[in-house]
């Protein structure tokens, strides 16, 4: 988020009435987040490179195991370029990435870009469905809890929501499989639909894996929506709206909700990032070929190039989502923009 120094002793009103900042400061304000994002991306790549290639000590040894003879370890290291100095290796890794060359998977013998592209699309479908279910559900839940504040309705929605949020995704996923798939036989156990099926069939197959993601996000979002609504209900403009005789429905829809849901909407980006972590577990549990399961198979096969690029993709996606949600928050709420 951009920060602009405010002269001391000036009220918010005075600040809002300020003329727009001169162009040079505006440029700086727009550039700062971009520069920070770039710095973060460089650090991220360094961290991933360090984790994957420096931490093991010797890549060839890691891949071939303890029993392999030294000569074959040396040969493999030379083939992978792992015998070169560290800085040179990092620079060539970054150089290739920037030219769009994501390398080749060791285990699958396919270009990483092809593998990642297909997996990203699949993960995106799953994440989109989970979001499409959880966002309206959590907003309605939070608002209802706030309108029935401190009653059993409030306590049940928030209490159950938070208790479910802390459960690992594979636990909720397994319970969902046991009850909905094996017990009631409502949904298939696998997430991958038969090839060539239409959009509706695909969605039908994705409902099960979406459930643990919905469960893990619901509590937090509902709590935020509730807090926002409570603040709005306690506000002066709400009191005024009620006192001037507007019907309750209009007060809620026009005065309360608009202000209540802003904070919730502005954290959706970071929640999308949180969702990616859950994807690993859910995709494996439901045998779905997305980024999460791709990273997992790469980890199992010690496929370092694919693992590096996969983890980097996830980090970049998260950073972009966070930056985007900052921008959206600014667009929705002028107060955030000024600060």
């Amino acid at each position, binding site marked *: 988020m951009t920060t602009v120094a405010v002269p001391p002793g000036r009220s918010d009103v005075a600040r809002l009435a300020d003329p727009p900042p001169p162009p040079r400061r505006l440029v700086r304000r727009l550039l700062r987040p971009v520069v920070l994002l770039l*710095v*973060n991306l460089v*650090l*991220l790549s360094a*961290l*991933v490179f360090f*984790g*994957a290639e420096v*931490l*093991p000590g010797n890549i060839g040894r*890691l891949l071939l195991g303890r029993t392999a003879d030294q000569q074959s370890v040396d040969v493999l290291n030379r083939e992978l370029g792992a015998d070169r100095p560290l800085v040179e290796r990092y620079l060539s890794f970054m150089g290739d990435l920037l030219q769009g060359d994501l390398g080749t998977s060791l285990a699958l013998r396919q270009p990483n870009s092809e593998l990642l592209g297909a997996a990203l699309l699949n993960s995106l479908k799953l994440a989109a469905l989970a979001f499409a279910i959880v966002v309206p559900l959590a907003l309605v839940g939070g608002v209802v809890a706030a309108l029935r504040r401190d009653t059993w309705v409030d306590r049940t929605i928030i209490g159950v929501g*938070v*208790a479910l949020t*802390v*459960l*690992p*995704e*594979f*636990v909720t996923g*397994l*319970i969902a*499989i*046991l009850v909905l798939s*094996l017990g009631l036989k409502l949904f298939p156990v696998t997430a991958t639909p038969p090839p060539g099926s239409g959009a509706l069939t695909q969605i039908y197959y994705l409902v099960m894996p979406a459930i643990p993601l919905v469960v893990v996000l619901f509590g937090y979002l509902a709590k935020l929506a509730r807090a926002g609504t409570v603040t709005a209900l306690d506000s002066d403009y709400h009191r005024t709206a009620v006192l001037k005789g507007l019907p309750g429905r209009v007060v809620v829809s026009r005065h309360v909700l608009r202000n209540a849901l802003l904070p919730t909407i502005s954290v959706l980006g970071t929640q999308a*990032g*949180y969702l*990616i*972590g*859950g994807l*690993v*577990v859910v995709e*494996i*549990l439901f045998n779905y070929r997305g980024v999460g399961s791709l*990273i*997992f198979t790469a*980890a*199992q096969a*010690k496929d*370092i190039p694919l*693992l590096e690029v996969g*983890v980097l993709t*996830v*980090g970049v996606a*998260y*950073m972009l989502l*966070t930056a985007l949600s900052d921008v959206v928050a600014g667009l929705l709420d002028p107060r955030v923009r000024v600060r």
Partner: protein
Amino acid sequence: MTPLAPAVRPPRPVGLVVGGVILGIWVVCAIGGELLVPDPYATDSFATLAPPSAEHWLGTDRLGRDVFARAVTGARSILLVAPAATLIGTLIGTALGLVTGYFAGAVDDVVSRLVSVVLSLPVVIVALLALVALGPSSLTVIGVIGFIFSAPIARTVRAAVRVEREKDYVEAARLRREPALAILFVEILPNVLGPVLTEATVRLGYAVFFIATLSFLGFGIQPPSPDWGLAIYENYTLLRASAWPVIVPAVAIASLVVSVHLVAEGLVRRGER
């Protein structure tokens, strides 16, 4: 004389009590372990995936091992690894937060940026990357989760230290020419201990969450441990044949995670009062 107003009683800490009881049961299981139940490692190749019976109360797993015995003894690994990881994360995070919060400047900039980069990757994914490099074991899991958790703890401590730094007692210590280390650990640390402990108790719940998840992925605690996440990893493909070896550890994980969170929340609330 009648009292003027009914005495306001603080709400009973129901969550704290319920959570404490469940957590207490699991701690007893973790300590008692093999003394309480039949051998959790004994295999019976004639009774694999058996349903519950008088001999095996909750059935057997794919190797014919007793599910109940493994659920009870499985409490030990997670109740050792999760607090150990939290402790390491808290120690590193507190030290980092103290230093970066007190010495604003280049060190602060670099460390804070690194912290936000670590926070921008999902925990499970960083942990996978590091565990591939280091090899999965209970010790590496403790180290990796501790390292990752030090980032959010450092962020919390740093924010608290930046407030404390401006206060008079710190200024006084500076004028007394106390060495910086003494100011950090003798003067400031006791005053930011509240947020540190709050953060640590909350982290413990997440530690259980992530360590169970890593075990489920096969990158955490290793066989033949009766660990719950590992038990689910070993048996969930056989869910259709018998659900017992999966349901029992799943319920155990769920009850442990919820109880740790209830206790943590109860303690935090108590501390605030």
